[in-house]
Every structure is written in C-alpha cells, then in structure tokens.
C-alpha cells in the first residue's frame, strides 16, 4: 500500500470517526429529548387519571346525593340500578329482587307510557313525562321523568337512564288549587247574582213609593197646600237618590266580576254613551276618532267612560263646557285621557276621590261611588288611574288599559 493510499484511508477513517461522534451526539440529544417527553407524558397521564377518578367520584356523589330518584335500566326495561331515592320511592330493593319498569306503570297510563318508551328508543330521550306509578306497597304516586339512552363507545345503545321526581304532592296541590278556583268562581258568581237580587228587592219598594206618591198627588191636587206639595217632592227626590245609590252600589260590587273577554271597539262604546247620556247644550263632548279595540267586557268600558264623562258634565261650571276624550298607544298598554274645563280638584283630594263614598261636594245627584267604580274597573284591566287638575281651570283624568 503506497503512502498516498494510506493517507487517504487515514483521512477517511478520521471522517468516519467524526461522523460517528456527530451521529452519537445527535442520537444522545434525541434520546434525552425523548426521555423528557416521556416524563412529561407520564405526568400528564397521571393528571388525567386523577381527573378521571375525580369525575367518577363526582358522578358517584351525584348519583348518591341527588334528591330525585335515578334509575338505570337495560333496553327491555329491566332495572339495573336504583339510587337510594329511587329505592325509597318505588319500595323495591333491586340489589335483592328483579324489577322491570313495566311493572311500575299505572294501568290507565299504560298507552302514554309505552308511547314515551318508544320515543326514548327512537329519539334517544324523552322529557317531562308525567304519569302515575304503583309502588311495591301498591301506593299510587305521580312522577315526573326525564330519560335518555346510554350509548357505548361505538355509539350503540346499551341502556337507558332516567331521573324520576315524585310530584304526588304537587299534583295534589294542583288539584286543590283547581277546586278552590272553581269554588271561588262559583261563589263569585253567586255573589254577583245575590247583589242583583238584593238590588232588585231594594228597588222595588222605591218604585211602589213613587207610584203611591204620584197617586196621592193626583188624587189631592186641590186639597194640598204648597208646603205639603214641596214635602212630597222632597220625598220623591230622596227616593230618587236612594235608587241611584242602590244602582251605584250594585255596579261597584260587580265591577270586578269580569265577564268573558271579547274584542271591544271603544269607538262604538263612546258613540253609545254619546247617544244615551244626557249632555247639556252648553257642553261639547269631543271624542278622538280612532279609539282602539281592547279586550274585555264592553259593559265595564261603558261604565268606565260614562262615569268619568258624567262627572265631567256634573262638575262643569263654565259657560262653554268642553270635554275631550283622547288616547295614546304605548307598547304594552293604551293610555286614555278625559279632559274637562270644569271646577277642578284640589291636590289634597287627588287620592281620596277614588275611595268609595268619598264625594267632594255634598250633592243630591252624586252618590260618591262613581270614581270608585272607575278605579275598580281600571284595576280589573291591570291599569293605573291618576289625574292632573288646576282648580277653576279643569281636570284631566288619565288611565291605562293593558293591551
């Protein structure tokens, strides 16, 4: 081997060595990297395992601690698991005896139960199932159930779970509430009828008195002196006041008796008032042309507007009286106004006037019930009533009616 060849080989060897060392270093670096990575992975794994443990113990806690009954069953309805609440509710100890949920169904609810069970299988869940069950001790209980299918890793249904709430007590209360409401409605109706009968019985004698008085007058036209005639007229006036008092008390007591709600066109209601109410010639009643249609009892709305308008007429002292009916529409309610240019009301009476029998002026033609009726009707339709007034200038009553 010549010298040159030897030198070449030596250089080659040197390069090979250097390459080997470089490779070893690279490998060493890589394996350190790998080691650190696996350390890191192990740590992450441990954390994940802890988390899983935590989750399953949390779940176990939920399972044991929820107040509602928790049931796991296979797809044919065989109960696999009851929590304590379920055991207490149904009375079966499923660790000791076999139970299929079909045995729990109350006969009358069977069709509903089977429909819901079908829904569970096709849709994967059902919600707000409410029906009766029969417990081991043959007790009937109302339950509310939300259920869902449990799937395995391959998304195949393997079981079903349900949360069952005992709503027997709630159902009982609901039933009681219904009965009480029914009773209340009935007694309200009776009261309404009774008020009408009483008013009839009170009004009849007044009619008799008036008839008798008019006959007495007719028969003794020449015999009576002027004082007697005056006294008789006073009796007649008193009878009239008595009659309107009875009418007002009747409408006050039945003001919150709501008839069936229908659409009420207030334009028609106001037109009716305009034609039936006596409006003196010096008073102009101006009504906004496009009053809304509201829901309620038209008689009530008639009473409401009529009372406010007749008040405005009664307490108007101006040569040219003006009464204006207007409204504005708000998103959830209508606000009406009845404006007059009459006597006005002092601030201190603004609250008082809505109380029953509170008349500001002792007047023969005023029973002091009108505004109380108005207030009651506004309350009935969940509205508010208030007023703005300047004595001797006029008053505006505002009230709202919920849409």
């Amino acid at each position, binding site marked *: 081997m010549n010298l040159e060849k030897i030198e070449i080989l030596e250089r080659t060897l040197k390069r090979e060595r250097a390459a080997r060392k470089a490779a070893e270093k690279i490998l060493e670096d890589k394996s350190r990297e790998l080691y650190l990575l696996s350390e890191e992975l192990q740590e992450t794994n441990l954390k994940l395992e802890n988390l899983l443990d935590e989750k399953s113990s949390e779940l176990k806690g939920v399972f044991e601690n929820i107040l509602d009954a928790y049931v796991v069953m296979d797809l044919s309805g065989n109960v696999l698991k009851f929590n304590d609440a379920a055991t207490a509710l149904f009375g079966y100890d499923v660790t000791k005896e076999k139970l299929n949920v079909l045995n729990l169904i109350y006969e009358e609810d069977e069709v509903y139960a089977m429909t819901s069970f079908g829904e569970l299988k096709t849709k994967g869940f059902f919600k707000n199932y409410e029906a009766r069950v029969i417990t081991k001790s043959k007790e009937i209980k109302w339950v509310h159930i939300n259920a869902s299918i449990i799937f395995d890793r391959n998304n195949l249904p393997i079981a079903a779970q349900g949360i069952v709430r005992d709503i027997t007590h709630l159902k009982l209360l609901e039933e009681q509430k219904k009965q009480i409401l029914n009773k209340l409605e009935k007694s309200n109706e009776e009261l309404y009828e009774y008020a009408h009968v009483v008013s*009839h019985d009170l009004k009849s004698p007044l009619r*008799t008195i008036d*008839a008798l008085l008019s006959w007495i007058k007719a028969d003794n036209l020449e015999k009576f002196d002027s004082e007697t005639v005056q006294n008789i007229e006073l009796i007649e006036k008193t009878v009239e006041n008595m009659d309107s008092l009875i009418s007002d008390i009747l409408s006050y007591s039945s003001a919150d008796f709501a008839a069936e709600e229908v659409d009420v066109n207030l334009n028609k209601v106001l037109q009716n008032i305009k034609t039936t109410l006596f409006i003196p010639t010096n008073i102009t009643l101006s009504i906004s042309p496009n009053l809304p249609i509201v829901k309620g009892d038209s008689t009530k709305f008639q009473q409401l507007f009529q009372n406010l308008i007749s008040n405005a007429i009664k307490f108007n002292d101006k040569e040219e009286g003006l009464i204006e009916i207007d409204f504005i529409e708000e998103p959830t309610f209508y606000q009406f106004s009845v404006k007059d240019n009459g006597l006005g009301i002092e601030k201190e009476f603004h609250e008082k006037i809505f109380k029953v029998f509170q008349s500001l002026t002792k007047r023969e033609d005023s029973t002091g019930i009108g505004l109380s009726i108005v207030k009651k009707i506004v309350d009935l339709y969940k509205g508010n009533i208030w007023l703005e007034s300047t004595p001797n200038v006029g008053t505006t009553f505002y009230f709202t009616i919920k849409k």
Partner: protein
Amino acid sequence: MNILKRSLNILLIEDHMIEIVKFKKTVSYHDLKHNITEAKDADEAFKILEDKNNLPDLILLDLNMPRISGIEFLSILKKDEDLRHIPTVILTTSDNQKDLEECYRIGVSGYVLKPLKYKDYETKIEAILTYWSLNELKKY
C-alpha cells in the same frame, strides 16, 4: 188615527200587589179597553194557559217570582208548541245583563226595565200597549 186598533188579551204574571195596581191603572188610562188576566206565579199562569181556546195575545212577565223563576217559566213556555208563539215581554227591576241576554236567547219580544218614576213607567207601558194593538198577531 185611522189605523185599526185592537184591544188585547193580556196575561200579567206578577206577584206584587202594587205592581198589579200600577199596571191596571196605566192600562185604564189607555184609549182602548184591554182585558187583563192576572197570575201571581208560574203555576197559576200555566193553569190559565191550559185553556187553549182562550190564549192571551201578550204575556207580561216579571222575572222575580217565587218558586219557579221568570226565566224558568219562559223556558217552559218557549218549548211548548201551543204557547211558544205568544209574544212575551219581560217587566223587571233587575238590569242584570246576564238575565237580559238569557231572555233574548230563549226568545222574548221585549225586555222592559221598570223605571223609578211612575210617569216614566206609564210612558213605557203605553208604548207596549200601542205597539201590540197596532201590529199583527197570530190569528187563531
């Protein structure tokens, strides 16, 4: 007036004595002599209505009656093939809207609220009498 007026056979069903007097007095002032039959309650009224040859032209009915109420009476009357055609007008002090609607539903020819003033009462009764004496009734 040249229109032919008819005097009426009226059945008044009313239990209150003064009310009967009021009605009779008012009728007596009318320019025609009407024949009034009184019944104090529903039973009495039905007894009178048994005579099918002598049925009234008009029934005036008070709603407030003892035992069988005016509305019950009306229901029975309007179910009876022989009697249902007789115009029946309610005379009452009760302005119970429910009663009014119920009466019109069953089938009344009028619903008259008795006013307080005797003068107003006369006006209303005269209007009824005039209407039924002027207009057509079922012929027998």
